[in-house]
Structures are given as structure tokens and as C-alpha cells.
């Protein structure tokens, strides 16, 4: 009896151990990525706040020398990006990364390729602040800007109506970020498909979707409603040599490294990516997964615009990416056939909805049609 009991205890113990082990494996194994989903509805916005933000978004007077506006690089006709491999930046400077679209920015966790700013789910105002005040973008002194707005009676009125306040720098950030949050894809075929309309996308695109979630493994990083895990990964995209061979770009790059406190900024001849934020050497060469929404409108691709077309991008992944010491283990040769690659591209194209164009774009693009400065009777009007 005693022996039997011991045996039973042993068996029971083993069984518990096995179950525990199995359970442990299940917990520690790769979690399945969040499923693809249509963009969820956002909180309703105040139209008059969005309207003011829109005007300012298109107003050159948001930059130090009143020469560029947000739409300079986030052009509605170019998918709210600029169509360039590397962004232009403020006059007299050149930037060293590709301009991302700001469509659907409301759904983002992190912004910029290196993830140094909060996205639309968090403190988007600070991103607007960054874009307005940094020397490589708008080089704007917020205090000058607010005095400019006070010189525009139409804006004074609008600030009063929207915020019951005088024009103010923080309110400028708030209203511009409100406008940015309003830029959301509409009538996206893929979303319509997910909502049950089987005819919203082609058979080829459906095949592409299956590959995206299966053989090609794109879903490992491009997942959820935003089609991005919003985490840093290294793919080994080749460096864009002009970041370092064009003096103004190299200058801006070092200025950013300097602002972020990156050591040895005079020596880096590669884009360190998220390392500049985390200061963890394992993050060198890692960039935040971009959303794939509206991707067919935002060529060229990758953080430095080194890939020109979606075909190039698919081919890049098919070969298992480039080479980099920190390259993600998820990136491996895929062995896709030409028709599979074409199917993937067809799927990616279903992620673009109707072109998001403000109805009054022509007026917005013409600086002369924006609310104008007034000349006050200096001695009579209070400051």
C-alpha cells in the first residue's frame, strides 16, 4: 500500500510537472500577432477646431522665415508625404530621412522613424511642437508665431471662437494636432472586405492577404488595425549614401544626434535609428515599423527611401532583407514565386482608400488666399 501510494504520488507529481512545463511553453512561446482589423471609429472632433488647425497646417507663417508649411512635406496630393527619397527640411538645411505620411496618425503609438516622439494615441501636440521648433524643420520661435497670429484678425477671431482665448503657442499645437487626427483613410477596400463585403478586393489580393498572414510572415510586424506593431526592428536596409555625401544632410543628422544626446556623433556613418532614443546598442539600425495603410501613395519606401516601388519592397523581403548585425531573426528568405509577389503587391494596394483631399485645397495651397495680416493703428490698439 505504502509503495503504491508513493507510486501514485510520483505519477501525480510528474503529471503536474508535465502540465506545468507544457503551460510554461505555451506562455513563453511566440504570441500570435494581433489580427488585422478595420480602423476603429475615433472620438468625434470639433469641426471649428479642425478647421483652424487646417488653415495653420497650410500657412507658411508657421516657419521661421515664413517660407514653408507642414504641407510642404506632407502634401495632400502625395499621400500627405512628399514623394522624395529623403525629406527636404527647412530652407538652408536638408533632412536625412524619408517623409512619412500623416494619414491615420491618430492610431499611432510612436512617431518618426526612430520613434522619438509620441504618436496620435498619446501626446501628439509635442510632435507638432517638435516639427515647428526644431532647426531642421520649421525653425520657428513659438513666441514669434503667436505674435504673428495676433496680427491676423481672422485667426484672432477663430482662436476666440474655438478656445475662448487669444492666439497662443500651445493652442496652436492643439489645433494643428486636432487637424492631423482628422486625417483618416476613408472607404478602404480592405476594411470593407474585413467588414464582410467579399467583393471589395480581388481574388489576387485575397491570395496576397493569405501570404501576408502566412508564408510571407508580414503580419509578424505589420499587424492590428494600424498594420504596425509600432516597435523597432532592423531589416538591413542599405544606407542611403547621400545622407553622408550631401553635407547639409549629414549636418542635420548630427544635429539630431546631438539633440538626442548620442555619443560620438562626429563618427557615425550609418543611421543609428532607435539607438538614438534608447541608447541600447542592440537598437542600432532599428526603425519603428511603419503603417502600411495608404502605402501605395507614399513611395519611395523605408526610412531612407532606398526602395522605389512596392515590388522592390516585396523583393527585398523575399531575399530575407539586407545585412545588419542587429537584423531581426524574423527576416528570412521567403522563396516567393513571381505570382505570389504580385499577389502581395495587389493586397498592399487594397490598403489605400479614397484620396483624402480637403475640398478647399486650391485655396489652401495659395498663400495669398489665407487670412492676411492686418496693420493696426499702432498707438491706439493694445498689444
Amino acid at each position: 500500500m505504502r509503495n503504491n501510494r508513493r507510486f501514485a504520488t510520483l505519477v501525480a507529481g510528474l503529471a503536474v510537472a508535465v502540465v506545468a512545463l507544457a503551460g510554461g511553453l505555451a506562455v513563453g512561446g511566440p504570441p500570435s500577432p494581433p489580427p488585422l482589423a478595420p480602423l476603429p471609429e475615433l472620438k468625434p472632433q470639433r469641426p471649428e477646431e479642425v478647421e483652424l488647425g487646417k488653415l495653420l497646417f497650410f500657412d507658411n507663417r508657421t516657419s521661421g522665415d515664413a517660407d514653408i508649411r507642414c504641407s510642404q512635406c506632407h502634401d495632400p496630393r502625395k499621400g500627405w508625404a512628399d514623394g522624395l527619397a529623403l525629406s527636404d527640411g527647412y530652407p538652408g538645411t536638408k533632412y536625412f530621412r524619408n517623409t512619412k505620411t500623416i494619414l491615420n496618425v491618430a492610431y499611432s503609438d510612436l512617431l518618426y522613424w526612430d520613434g522619438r516622439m509620441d504618436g496620435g494615441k498619446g501626446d501628439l501636440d509635442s510632435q507638432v511642437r517638435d516639427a515647428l521648433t526644431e532647426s531642421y524643420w520649421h525653425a520657428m520661435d513659438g513666441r514669434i508665431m503667436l505674435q504673428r497670429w495676433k496680427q491676423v484678425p481672422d485667426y484672432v477671431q477663430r482662436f476666440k471662437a474655438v478656445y475662448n482665448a487669444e492666439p497662443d503657442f500651445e493652442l496652436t499645437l492643439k489645433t494643428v494636432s486636432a487637424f492631423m487626427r482628422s486625417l483618416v483613410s476613408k472607404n478602404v477596400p480592405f476594411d470593407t472586405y474585413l467588414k464582410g463585403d467579399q467583393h471589395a478586393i480581388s481574388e489576387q489580393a485575397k491570395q496576397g492577404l493569405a501570404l501576408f498572414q502566412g508564408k510571407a510572415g508580414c503580419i509578424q510586424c505589420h499587424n492590428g488595425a494600424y498594420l504596425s506593431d509600432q516597435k523597432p526592428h532592423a531589416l538591413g536596409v542599405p544606407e542611403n549614401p547621400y545622407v553622408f555625401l550631401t553635407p547639409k544632410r549629414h549636418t542635420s543628422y548630427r544635429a539630431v544626434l546631438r539633440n538626442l544626446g548620442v555619443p560620438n556623433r562626429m563618427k557615425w556613418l550609418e543611421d543609428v535609428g532607435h539607438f538614438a532614443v534608447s541608447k541600447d546598442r542592440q537598437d542600432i539600425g532599428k526603425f519603428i515599423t511603419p503603417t502600411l495603410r495608404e502605402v501605395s501613395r507614399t513611395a519611395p519606401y523605408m526610412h531612407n527611401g532606398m526602395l522605389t516601388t512596392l515590388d522592390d519592397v516585396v523583393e527585398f523581403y523575399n531575399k530575407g532583407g539586407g545585412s545588419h548585425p542587429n537584423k531581426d531573426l524574423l527576416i528570412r528568405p521567403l522563396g516567393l514565386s513571381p505570382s505570389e509577389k504580385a499577389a502581395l503587391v495587389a493586397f498592399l494596394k487594397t490598403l489605400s482608400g479614397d484620396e483624402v483631399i480637403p475640398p478647399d485645397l486650391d485655396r489652401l495651397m495659395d498663400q495669398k488666399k489665407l487670412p492676411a495680416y492686418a496693420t493696426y493703428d499702432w498707438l491706439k490698439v493694445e498689444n
Partner: protein
Amino acid sequence: MNKEGKMWRHRMITWVSLVAAVAFAASAFAADPAAVMKNRKTVSFNGEEFPALAHLPPPPILPDLKQRVGPDGYPEKDSKGMPKLDDPIVKLGYIMFFDQRFSGDGSVSCATCHVPKEGWGLSSAISRGYPGTSHWRNSQTIVNSAYLGKLFWAGDSLELGQQGEDANTGLSGNAKTDMVEERLRQVPEYVRMFKEVFGTQWPILKDAWRAMGAFERVMNDENTPFDRYMRGDKTALAPKQIKGMELFQGKAGCIQCHNGPMLTDEKYYNTGIPHNKEFDKDPLIQFSARWQYYRKGVGEHVFRKAKFDTGLYSNTHVEEHLGLQRTAPLRHLVYSAPYMHNGTFDTLEDVVEFYNKGGGPDPVLRDFGFSTKTKRLKPLNLTKEEKEALVAFLESTSGKEIILPDPKIPDDGVFPGAIAKFGKLAPEKFIEKEKKKE
């Protein structure tokens, strides 16, 4: 004056002279700007003592700046009497003075508002600002600025290097340290020159300001008729100018504030300078002026109501300082019109007429109900001849116009490591926007 008063005055003069003498002796060893500017002689006006007019001594050179001076203590001149620029630190400062890299968008240099052919100032009443803004004051000449202890109209900066840095940001240059310093490091010629002058591996922006200060310290106009006269050449001034100088120190009372070798006491006064009508026409001037008061943290009760240049108040926030500006030096005037902090007078005749009337109505009184205007100004009742003599004297403190060639601005370079890594590719071609602008 009673006996006690005389005694006090006598002691005071002895004491002042003693202090001045000690200060002067000290200045021979350490080139302390304040000590150099101390004057041995005084003149009295209305029972008060003021530093006497004098020729320009050698300029103060910062003790930690390796800047060359000639055997007489003055920076050397070339055969045409122009400042020599071959001292490495001066040459570096001179080149950078003209370099537009020192502004946010690369379109403005120091020389944009301190134009060589406009007396190293600007001939417009209100200085131009950075694109998209305006300045709100008159651009002062940099000539003889080495001698000033207080720079900018309200004395915001105390040293030329600091002045350059202050002008570089804000509505003159709108530049930021991060970008400008990195730009300098992208220029192989600057890297070489900074290494030679300052011994650093890479250019440091603070050193750039020091070099520009060194350049400004050679930009002196010390051989004027007035200076020659004060050094003993009694033929250097015409009789009319000598009469003007007597009026200056006598009936007109200018000496009360415009005294010493720079013809300024570097103190602050409200003289009731009239409103400049440019302010009524230009929205850029209007918001730029508001920005100035705003950024200096002027309290709201003052900010809302002040429709004049708050001057010293914007630095001290003391109400008695509302509308006070530092006394302007009266040198190089022939080349540096228009005059006053808001450039409201085009000619020296206008200026003399303004003081003849005892200055203008007080804008502080207008906006705040109390006056800060100096009590020293009273109607002078000058005759036409006397006014002409004063103007003639004021013209005697200008020597030769200082004209230097525009320097060659060195080009950006690519880091050698970048060429080794990426090879020499054709230059990047693009930018629709730039094409459009052309």
C-alpha cells in the same frame, strides 16, 4: 556753493581722480575694458563733474584672446589705413561675419544688417530682420564697438562675443546652436582654422563668437580729426568745429551724457524720442516689436499698454526704467545715419534740432501716466550758427570710411570617412522646390 559743499566737492574730485588714476595704472597691465574706459580728466557742467572728451585709447583686448596688436597697443592698419586682417583669429572672425551659415535658413549673415558700405550698420530706420519678421530697432554700426561696455540699444550684452550670440538667435538670425555648430564642422577650411586658432579638434560655436569679437575689435576709427585734435594737433579741427565742441560742453550741455573718449556715459535716459511712423505701416514690425517685449518677460500690465520701446525696463523690470535707452556713442556718425534707437532722425541737423527743443514728449507719461524722461533736457535756444557748429563738430568724430573686400566663404565638404565608405558618387540632384524658386 557754501564752504562745506566746496570741501565735499574738492574731496570728491580728489577721490575720483585717485580712483581713475589707479584704474588707469591697472589698465596698463590687465586690459580690463572698464578700467581702460576710465578717464583721468573731468569737466564740470552745472556744478557736476563729467569725464572729459578724449581721443580713443588702444581698444581693450580680452585677456584670454590671442589677438595681435601693434607696438602702440592699437590693432595694426594696412598702407591704406584699413584694419589688417592677417591675424588668424581676426581673419576667421572676418570671414564668419559674412557667412550666411550663421542664420537659420542660411540667408542672413552679420553683414546683412551691418553692411560695409552703410557704415557697418544699415541705412534704413528700422533694421531688417530675419525673413518673415522685421527688426524693431535701428542697426548700430560695429565700428568702435570694441570700446563699448554695453551693447545693443538697451545694453543687453556686455561683451562682443555675447552680443554676436544674442543677435544670432531671435529675429536677426533665427539660428540654433545645434545646426550652426554642426554646419561649421562640415566646412573643412573652418575645421582647419579653428584648430589653428583655438586648438580644438572641431569648431565650437562659442569660439566662433570670440573670433567675430576679435574681428570687431580691429574695426576702429581712431584717427578722426577729433582724435588728432585731442592728441595735440590743433589744426585738425576747423574753427567752426572747435566752436561746436565748446557748445557741446557748454551751452548745449551734450557733455552731460555724451562724454569720455566714446562720447557716451553708457547710462540710460528717456529723451522722448518720437514714435517712428514705420510702426504704423508694417505688420511685420508690429508683431516683431510685440515679440521683443513678450520674450523679455515684460509683465502683462506693461506689455498691453506700452506703445514705445520699453528699453532698459525690458531687462530690469523696474518701472523707473521704462523707455530708457543707453546713450549712443557719437562716433562714425557721418556713415551711420539714420539716428536714434528707432532711426527716426535722418540727419544730424534733425538730432540737434530735437535737443534744441529739449527733447520730445514722454511716451511713458502718455501710456502710463508718470514720466521717466531725463531732467537734463531743456530747450537750448541755439542760434542757426550754433546748430551748424554743433553738427560740424559731430562730423569731426568720423575718419575714413572703412571698406574691406567681401571675403571668400569656404565651401561645405564631405567627411573623408564618408567618401571612404560610400565612394565618390555624383552630387545629389533634385529638389523641385529650389528649381521653382530659381
